[in-house]
């Protein structure tokens, strides 16, 4: 088993903002169950900021922890700020990840970006 930081274990055991959001303004899903990970990030947007955010994740310890962390990092940020959150930001906030697990932090940030793009697409269409 990979060795995880305390921060990773904390987010894995008590994930923040976990669950489906039925009335989300934007939804981003990334990953591939065949590879052992699928993440969905849901956002609620108010005045250009992420007012509420939640996630669902199928995956390993790092996948759950990075999902939880990305929701914490993005909450309250403007959409532009949230778009700039990177995989490194997620991994660093968790005190680092084992090298083999770095792709998980990539997925979490990607799911957030996809949710923002989904929201923007919907609002552009409206």
């Amino acid at each position, binding site marked *: *088993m990979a060795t995880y930081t305390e921060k990773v274990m904390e987010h894995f055991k008590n994930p923040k903002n976990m669950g489906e959001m039925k009335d989300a303004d934007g939804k981003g899903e990334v*990953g591939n*169950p*065949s*590879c052992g990970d699928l993440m969905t990030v849901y956002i609620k947007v108010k005045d250009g900021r992420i007012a509420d955010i939640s996630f*669902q994740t199928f995956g390993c310890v790092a996948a759950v922890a990075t999902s939880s962390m990305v929701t914490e990092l993005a909450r309250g940020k403007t959409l532009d700020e949230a778009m700039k959150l990177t995989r490194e930001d997620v991994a660093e906030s968790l005190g680092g990840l084992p090298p*083999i697990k770095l792709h998980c932090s990539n997925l979490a940030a990607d799911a957030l970006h996809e949710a923002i793009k989904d929201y923007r697409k919907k609002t552009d269409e409206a």
Partner: protein
Amino acid sequence: MTSMNVYLDNSATTRVDPAVVEAMLPFFTERFGNPSSIHSKGVEAREAVEVAREQVAKLINAKPSEIIFTSGGTESDNLAIAGAARAAHSADSSKNAVVCSNVEHPAVLNTCKDLAASGFSFSEAKVSPNGVLEVAEAQSNISSKTAVASIMLANNEIGSIQPVAEVAKLCHEQGVLMHTDAVQATGKIPIDVRKLDVDLLSLASHKFHGPKGVGALYLREGVKIKPIFGGGGQERGLRSGTENVPGIIGLGAAAQIARENLSVDIAHMERLRDKLIDNLVVLPRAFLNGSHDQRLPNNANFRFLGLEGEALITLLDGDGICASTGSACSSKKLRASHVLTALGLADWEAHGSLRLTLSRFTTQDEVDYAIEKIPAAVSTLRRMSPVWAKLERGEKIEDVKDGHVH
């Protein structure tokens, strides 16, 4: 129930029997001689090694002269397959192929692949969805060109027991040497090399309450193999290097205890295994991986759809339960286990697997505790899983092979 330490990973390794440790101790400090030495210290070590050889031979109904001590299962597999393939090829250059099953341990699989890289042809016989090899499938892979075929006696992940005696018969009809990796089977089912009619058999001490770093290769009298490394010519020139005397003594003691307790141990493990199976396959979308009937008495391997194995193992570890998974994320490869996908499972299904393996020392309390904790851990992960949500909505999960998008 209060927290417990529960060890259900006995296919990874087992606790050394205290009687085994007791038997080994004098060979570190007082009886430390080199078995090759002529003086009395050497002679006493040699005598002890020969007693251990008899103990190991008895466990599998071999002659002591047919036992070669090695560093463990991996070395035994390498020596057996590479050694037999090279010897057979030197004696008859038309012998240029090796065969194994598609659920072998990497020690076998990679030895075959190495031989393939050095000019042998290599084919894998595919198991059926229950994890058991059909004899006809083995037959279609074996020909008179085959130097050696290697079919494990029992699988390390799903515990499926293979028809080794039947495949050995086929092999011998075509002049093919037959090896079996019995690392997981030793001490779990009766093993008789005469009945199996194999030419080579690997076993590892630490899988049946002996120490790590020691194992044995059974080499049928008259069968020729080439050593895989050179040196002082110990073990009849087939395995150079000063004997690991304390380890060998421990292996011998473990073999004797295993033989004396085998029928009691089997009944004990089987009862606990069935209790695990009966209580855990009733969870929603939970399945037993591999055959129930042709299965080691100490192995239960489940798949719980909608979750990922490493996360499950980590949650259980937090509850004090040591278990293992065939999941990609824990094995440092972003791939589902080759054994589970060989059963025809989609990768996403295989990722949710949990292996629980028992031993002589596993208690009823440990099993009851696991039965209490596992369903809760499964539910925790499913509650956060979008895959589980899709399954609950009746959606299909697509299996995108090689669809690595990241």
